[in-house]
C-alpha cells in the first residue's frame, strides 16, 4: 500500500491514515475520524446516558473489531518469537541453541496442555464460582441466553462468584465449552441493560476466542519465566555447557543473566498489551451484539464507583476479568503494564460509538 501513514505524536509509531488512535500507545489523534464514523450527530452531551441509538453505523463496529484482531495476532506472534528467542539465547550461552529451543518448546507443550484442558476449572475454583441455577438467577440466565442468540454461539455455562465488587469473566478453550461468571455485586447493582452489556462483552471474548488467547499468552509468559528461573539456578544446562568446551565464560554468562532478567519482563508487557487490545475489541463486539454501547458504558461507570474486587483475585488471572480487579481506578491504566485500558477511555469510546460526546477515542 502506498498511502501516507500517520505518525503518532506521542510515541512516533506509524499508523493507518484513517486511524483515530495510536496502535501502539492508544494516544488519540487530533482528527475527525470517529465523529465521521459516528455520523456527527448533534444534541448529545458527555455524560448523557439516554439510549440514543439510531444511526450507529455498523461499519464502526466491524472496523474496530477487525483492527483489534489484527493487532492482537501481531502481538501474539511477537510473544511467541520472543519465547523462542529466549530459549535459543539461553541455550547458546550454554553451548547448544537446539537444546535451548527444544527445552523451551517441551516446557511450553506441557504448560499449554495443562492450561488447555484444565484451565477453566482451575480458574473457577480459584475464584470460588458456583453454577447459577434457573430459579434464583432467572434474569442472569435469560440475559446470557439472549446474548448467545445474538452472537449465534452455543449457550455457555453460567457461574456466580460471591462478592460485593462488580466484575465478570469468561473462560473456555472453545465456544462449545465456554462459561461466563459474574459477581453477586454485579447482579445486585446493574440493571438489565447494563447486565446485557457486560454479558455481551464476555460473549465477544468467547466468540473471538480471546479465552483461548488468554490462556496461551499466560502459558507462554509463564514458561519464559520458568525457563529464565531454571537458567538462573543453572539446573539442567550447567553440566552440558562446561563439558562442551568451556563456552560458559563470563561474557556469555552475563548476557544470559541479562536475558533471563529481561525476558519475563518483556513477555509480561506483551501479554498486557494483548489483553488491552482485546478489551477494546470485546467492548466493540459486545456493543455490536446488544446494539447498545451505552448499556456497557453505564456498567463501567458503576464499576468505577463500586469497585471490581473478586474473591481469590491474583496476578495470574487478572487479565481474564471484565475490569482488572487488582487495579485502582485512579491509576493511569494506559501505562504499559496494565492488563486493561483505563475505564474512562473505554467509556469514552463506547459513547463515541453511540454518537455521544467528543471524538476522544
Amino acid at each position: 500500500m502506498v498511502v501516507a501513514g500517520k505518525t503518532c505524536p506521542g510515541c512516533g509509531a506509524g499508523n493507518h491514515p484513517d486511524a483515530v488512535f495510536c496502535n501502539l500507545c492508544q494516544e488519540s489523534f487530533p482528527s475527525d475520524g470517529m465523529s465521521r464514523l459516528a455520523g456527527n450527530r448533534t444534541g448529545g452531551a458527555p455524560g448523557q446516558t439516554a439510549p440514543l441509538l439510531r444511526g450507529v453505523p455498523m461499519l464502526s463496529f466491524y472496523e474496530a473489531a477487525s483492527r483489534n484482531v489484527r493487532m492482537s495476532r501481531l502481538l501474539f506472534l511477537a510473544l511467541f518469537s520472543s519465547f523462542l528467542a529466549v530459549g535459543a539465547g539461553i541455550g547458546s550461552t550454554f553451548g547448544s541453541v537446539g537444546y535451548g529451543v527444544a527445552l523451551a518448546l517441551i516446557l511450553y507443550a506441557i504448560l499449554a496442555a495443562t492450561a488447555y484442558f484444565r484451565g477453566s476449572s482451575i480458574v473457577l475454583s480459584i475464584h470460588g464460582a458456583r453454577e447459577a441455577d434457573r430459579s434464583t438467577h432467572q434474569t442472569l440466565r435469560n440475559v446470557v441466553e439472549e446474548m448467545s442468540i445474538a452472537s449465534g454461539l452455543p449457550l455457555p455455562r453460567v457461574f456466580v462468584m460471591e462478592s460485593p465488587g462488580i466484575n465478570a469473566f469468561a473462560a473456555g478453550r472453545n465456544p462449545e465449552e465456554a462459561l461466563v461468571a459474574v459477581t453477586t455485586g454485579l447482579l445486585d447493582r446493574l440493571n438489565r441493560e447494563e447486565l446485557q452489556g457486560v454479558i455481551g462483552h464476555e460473549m465477544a471474548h468467547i466468540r473471538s476466542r480471546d479465552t483461548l488467547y488468554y490462556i496461551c499468552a499466560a502459558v507462554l509468559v509463564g514458561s519464559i519465566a520458568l525457563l529464565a528461573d531454571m537458567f538462573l539456578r543453572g539446573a539442567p544446562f550447567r553440566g552440558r555447557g562446561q563439558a562442551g568446551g568451556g563456552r560458559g565464560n563470563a561474557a556469555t554468562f552475563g548476557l544470559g543473566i541479562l536475558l533471563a532478567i529481561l525476558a519475563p519482563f518483556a513477555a509480561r508487557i506483551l501479554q498486557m498489551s494483548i489483553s488491552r487490545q482485546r478489551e477494546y475489541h470485546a467492548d466493540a463486539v459486545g456493543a455490536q451484539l446488544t446494539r447498545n454501547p451505552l448499556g456497557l458504558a453505564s456498567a463501567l461507570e458503576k464499576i468505577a464507583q463500586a469497585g471490581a474486587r473478586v474473591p481469590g483475585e491474583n496476578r495470574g488471572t487478572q487479565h481474564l476479568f471484565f475490569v482488572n480487579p487488582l487495579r485502582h481506578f485512579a491509576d493511569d491504566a494506559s501505562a504499559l503494564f496494565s492488563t486493561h485500558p483505563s475505564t474512562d477511555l473505554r467509556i469514552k469510546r463506547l459513547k463515541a460509538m453511540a454518537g455521544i460526546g467528543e471524538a476522544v477515542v
Partner: protein
Amino acid sequence: MAWIPAILAVGLVGWFVLTYNVLVRLRNQFRNAWHQIDVQLKRRYDLIPNLVEVVKDYMAYEQETLTRVIEARGAAISAKGAGAQGKAENVLTESLKSLFAVVEKYPELKANQNVAALQEELTATENKISFARQFYNDSVMTYNNRIQSIPSNIIASVFDFSQAEYFEVGEESRAVPRADLR
C-alpha cells in the same frame, strides 16, 4: 514441466471446494437463524396464556387490555405469509407493552412473585426475538457479502446461491421507545 498445470488444477479444485463449502455453511446459518426466530415466537405464544391467567383476577377493570393481548396472540398464530405475520407480531408486541404498563399501576401485582417471574420471562423472550432477528440479519449480510464479492460470486452464480432477504421491522415498532421493566 508437466506438474505445473497439475498443481494449478489441484489448487483450483481446492479453492472451489473450500469456497463452495463456505457458501453452504453461510446459507445454512442464515436459514437456521430464521428458524430460531420461530422458536422464540412460539415460546412467546406459550407464555402469554400463563401471564393472562395470573393477572386477570387482579385486573378486573383492565379487561380490555387483556382481551387485546389474547386477540393479538390469536391473530399472530393464525397469520399466513411473512408480511402478515410480521404485522401481527408487531401488534402483539405493542399489546404486551401496554399490558406491562398496566401491571406497573398495580402494586400487589408487581409484588407477586409469579407475575414478576412471568414478566421477566416475557421480557427475555421479547429480547430473544429481536436478537434472533438481529442475528438473522447479520447472517444474511455475511452471506450476501460472500456471494456478491469476487471471486466467490462466480461459484455462487454457477450453483445458484441466490440473495437472501433481510428481515424488515415495521414503522410502528421503530417509533416505540424501549420500556425499562426493572
